[in-house]
């Protein structure tokens, strides 16, 4: 699938296959994301979209094909893994903040221990990102004291504190109450404006229209269609995408 923007590739998936036992979850998935490109991945549940995005920072391993992130191919070698995880931030559906650490500690832990940043510098950086996600006043609190939307914004700030080149979002708004979805999407739109390379698994079609250069539709472990959001949503070529879109729209 070709990129919409032209530029050096940030992520390349080349005929990636993955099985869970006998279950074939990724089938010949090929995708190239160029630098500064924003890709939204959508599809019905069980379509492999989360698995694919989790393969990009190797939370899951693929069995066939190649994944190249920022010029480095993902292998079992721990050093390349460290490099890639340092440069790829991830935001999860269930936030996964560390409940025993304060918001500030959540944000400074990795910069201090992975990037070896001095504590004061890491804290200043964390505060600047907390300001960007508009919750600097919560820095001394614990995750359990924050609302879901606030927690997810902290999770975004935490990932950004590692100053990644690529951000992955795995259904960042799916676990949120409806009234909190907007604040998280606004944060992500703000991030998009900075030119960050983003791959985002989401069903928020409004967000996709506004932000994505390209939408990728996955079903049954394979990429079925991809293209600019307007084109894809107005003129779906396959029955599977038509069905999916009708289900999504009915839900809204």
């Amino acid at each position, binding site marked *: 699938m070709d990129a919409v923007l032209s530029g050096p590739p940030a992520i390349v998936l080349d005929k990636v296959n993955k099985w869970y036992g006998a279950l074939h979850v990724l089938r010949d998935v090929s995708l190239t994301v160029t630098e500064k490109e924003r890709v939204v991945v959508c599809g019905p549940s069980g379509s492999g979209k989360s698995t694919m995005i989790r393969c990009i920072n190797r939370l899951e391993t693929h069995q066939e094909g190649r994944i190249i992130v920022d010029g480095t191919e993902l292998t079992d070698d721990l050093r390349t893994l460290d490099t890639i*995880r340092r440069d790829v931030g991830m935001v999860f559906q269930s936030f996964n903040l560390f*409940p025993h650490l304060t918001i500030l500690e959540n944000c400074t*832990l990795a910069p201090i221990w992975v990037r070896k940043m001095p504590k004061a510098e890491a804290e200043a950086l964390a505060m600047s990102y907390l300001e960007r996600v508009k919750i600097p006043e919560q820095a001394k609190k*614990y995750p359990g004291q924050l609302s879901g939307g606030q927690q997810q914004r902290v999770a975004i700030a935490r990932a950004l504190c590692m100053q990644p080149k690529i951000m992955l979002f795995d259904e960042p708004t799916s676990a949120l109450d409806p009234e909190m979805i907007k604040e998280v999407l606004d944060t992500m739109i703000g991030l998009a404006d900075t030119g960050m390379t983003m791959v985002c698994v989401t069903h928020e079609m409004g967000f996709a229209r506004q932000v994505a250069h390209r939408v990728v539709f996955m079903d049954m472990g394979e990429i079925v269609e991809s293209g600019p959001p307007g084109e894809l949503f107005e003129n779906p070529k396959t029955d599977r995408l038509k069905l999916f879109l009708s289900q999504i729209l009915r839900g809204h």
Partner: protein
Amino acid sequence: MSDAGIHVPTAARTQTVVASAGLVAWARLNLFGSWWSTAVTLLLGYIILRVVAGVVEWGLIHAIWTVPYSATGIADTAICQVAKGTGACWAVLTDKYRLILFGRYPYAEQWRPAIVVLLFIGLYIVSGMRRFWRKELLVVWVVVLAAIGILMGGGVFGLSDITEDYWGGLPITLILATFGAAFSFPLAVLVALGRRATKLPAVKLLCVLYVEIIRGVPLIAVLFMASVMFPLFMPAGINVDKLLRAQIAFILFAGAYLAEVIRGGLQALPAGQAEAADALGLSYWKKTAFIILPQALRLVIPPLVNTFIGFFKDTSLVLIIGIFDLLTMGKVALSDPPWQSFSTEVYLGLAAVYIAFCFAMSKYSRSLERDLNRARDR
């Protein structure tokens, strides 16, 4: 207490009444609510009073605290024999407490084990305070444990050399328990992590075998192996002393049980925590130290302390391999002919010491749990 025929929600009623009239009203409602309830209250009250009165009478009013000694220094327990059944003979404890607490340690040098016991207690208190939880605490532990070794054994700084054969009583119990906890806990953490290391099958197998084998054997068998079989396997001339062997047996035994408790905590942690740490690029050990263990251990404080309390009491099993811990010294004290028939008093005294330590542990675990969770859930 059942309130026959009344179907008003009792809890609601109790609350309002307590709020308005306090204890008397509460008692009237809950203890004397009906003739049946009144009868049970009176009967139970009578039994409790009789028991308490009996204990006070036996343990305090008719108790004998000292006995005369003959010219040769032998205790004359005639008055205790007379009072037997009606009054406690605490004189056995006032006479024998130093033997029970410090064993056969030379009498003139017993200030040394006394300081050792105080050092242990001080170490527990300091370690229990969260504001001392820093790297320096580790140094304090090493220094204090070294000081304890020097005080007990002597041979330096002008302290007379006293071999382990003379050690006994409370210091032995505390040494076994403290060194046991200090070494078995890190061992248990490593084993618990090792059992989950799916990418290192050899390590995993080793950890599983260790836990299953040790858990499958009675502690007494492990102690016997350490004391009887272990020397047979050692090359001639190498002699690891008995206390150290028992100590190692304890560490290995406690380690297996603690490992399972800790593994329970590791399993209770949502997978997302490890994934988030991975995604941030934290290495395995940093992830484990900063994210996984702090949360997993917090989850298992109650069973962890439960295990520690169990092992504190299990140290008394060393008597079967001829080490004189606190409980054993109680038995030794009772072997003195004049005191032979006062085992109740001695065992009550010993129980008080064990209860003091175990109760302190359980109180502490609850306050720790509350403090740690307050920071998180507030």
